[in-house]
């Protein structure tokens, strides 16, 4: 189904935020915002949910902790116990002090890399990916708000454009998409 998107460009993050607030109050759905840096406070206005990557980092960290514990228990206690200076490795708990540094490092290693990889995959930002910001200036000093006609069926295109013009935009653009 053919659809149309309207791109409204702003040159200030606070103007965009105020504009978004007014539009959302009128029931307009803003499908995306492109900006050169994070606009604090925009997420609840346009309905972007808080990411759950933090939970994932915790899960990856716990996985690392478990693997390190199981691994060192197997290597040092079960498979090849060592007797150093008459102090044998008989139980994991009695020797745990020596295992803490690596357990910690491995937890951090798994949490950090697990989260970073998930982040890149979820964003679909990977080597060789194509960027799709509507205007090259949105990575410099311009901020673009994207509205889709199909998501705002209660308003006509002209009505939407009129509302946008009241919010202090500097440019307006539109594009047909499939």
């Amino acid at each position: 189904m053919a659809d149309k998107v309207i791109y409204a460009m702003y040159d200030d993050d606070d103007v965009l935020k105020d504009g978004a607030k007014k539009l959302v109050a009128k029931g307009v759905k803003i499908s995306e915002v492109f900006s050169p840096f994070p606009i604090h406070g925009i997420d609840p206005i346009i309905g972007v949910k808080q990411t759950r990557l933090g939970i994932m980092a915790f899960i990856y960290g716990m996985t690392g902790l478990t693997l390190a514990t199981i691994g060192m228990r197997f290597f040092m206690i079960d498979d090849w116990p060592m007797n150093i200076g008459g102090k044998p490795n008989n139980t994991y708990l009695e020797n745990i002090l020596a295992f803490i540094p690596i357990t910690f490092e491995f937890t951090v290693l798994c949490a950090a890399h697990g989260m970073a990889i998930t982040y890149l995959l979820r964003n679909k930002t990977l080597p060789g990916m194509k960027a799709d910001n509507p205007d090259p200036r949105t990575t410099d000093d311009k901020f673009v708000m994207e509205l889709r006609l199909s998501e705002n069926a209660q308003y006509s295109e002209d009505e939407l454009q009129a509302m946008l013009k009241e919010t202090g935009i500097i440019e307006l653009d539109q594009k047909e998409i499939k």
Partner: protein
Amino acid sequence: MHKESAIREPLILGHKTYHDITDDVCKPIEDKAPKMWYVLFTIAAILGLYGVGTILYLLGTGIGVWGLNKTVGWAWDITNFVWWVGIGHAGTLISAVLLLFRQKWRMAINRSAEAMTIFAVFMAGLFPLIHMGRIWMAYWVLPLPNQFGSLWVNFNSPLLWDVFAISTYLSVSLVFWYIGLIPDFATLRDRVKNPLSKRMYTLLSFGWSGRAKHWNRFELVSLVLAGVATPLVFSVHSIVSFDFATSVIPGWHTTIFPPYFVAGAVFSGFAMVQTLMLVMRKAMRLEAYIHTKHVEYMNIVIMVTGSIVGVAYLTELFVSWYSGVEYESYAFINRASGPYWWAYWSMMTCNVVSPQLMWFKKLRRSLLFTFIISIVVNIGMWFERFVIIVTSIHRDYLPSSWSMFYPSPVDIGIFVGTIGLFFVFFLLFARFFPVLALNELKTILKSSGESYKNQSDDHATGH
């Protein structure tokens, strides 16, 4: 009574707009490199190549070509390793610990400080690898299943903890740095005209488009990475200090080592950041972003960590006497008055006396003075590691085996070579990468930029 606290100095000087920030940071990358860059790069590359040559010679001949002897079995290799790891502590401290403390001034320096960290840890990692002699066996430090009766690496050994600590530190710092770089590469991608550069930055920017959801994730990932990297910063140098502290050598066998090494690492790391930043801000005309206030903040960190190091030296000295252990006392008396007295006293002067000068506001705000002190501190911190390592072992329990350590040309060549390689990497970074965190600087423009600060100033006096 109504009292208002003074408004802090702006962090971004001049009346900058978002576009000015982009221009100021991207210009040096888009313009032709200045002649000085080529001169410095050539010098660094020659030193680096010389270092690579000496390393190849070492690997072909064996580590007997170092100046080690049967008493001093560990000298410049480990000194240089600890020195470089120490320098590599400032970057992640700046970007992680200062992020958690919401210190906005970090944003001007975190990108390049972290680049410096990564390159310094590269240099550090080189030393344990070449010390193995048979570097092609390096994978033996990993717990891999094998046919020697399934013989594992020794998880009780601090040297193995180091393997895990350094590799975790290096890879996590690298990821942290790169995730911050992605949006800035996107800025460059959308700006550059040259088709080759455009392709390069398109590849490096991973298709970043700056969507609201992506920024939401970006901020959380930065925060969580800072959270996990903070204990990591402290753990790495603690573990490096365990290499010594868990031994039974007088002079090494002290419980004060972990905090003392961490403070020393931050101390030397910040000194190296100062050395590099003071040159970089001038060469790349970034004076509006890295100015006297930033230098002053870093000098305060240097002063505090330098004082911690000073207290640690004195505590160590006191405890060696108070313990009543004659071997322990001798190790320290020998350090201060033995044949290596000059190393001990240069360490004391550079690390304990010189940072105390930072109490004077005039001095800590003077750029020339800061530059000199930053180099003095780095020399002092190299001597600290040399003193701890060599003076503790050159006179052991058996006086007939007492000896001195003299570096061989290979020792010197490798050390000088790592300095060359470090600068090769750093100069390449400064030439092709955005040296300031563009996206982060833009977020503080309204709270810490000069024009906006003045607005709030007028507002305050209007009461």
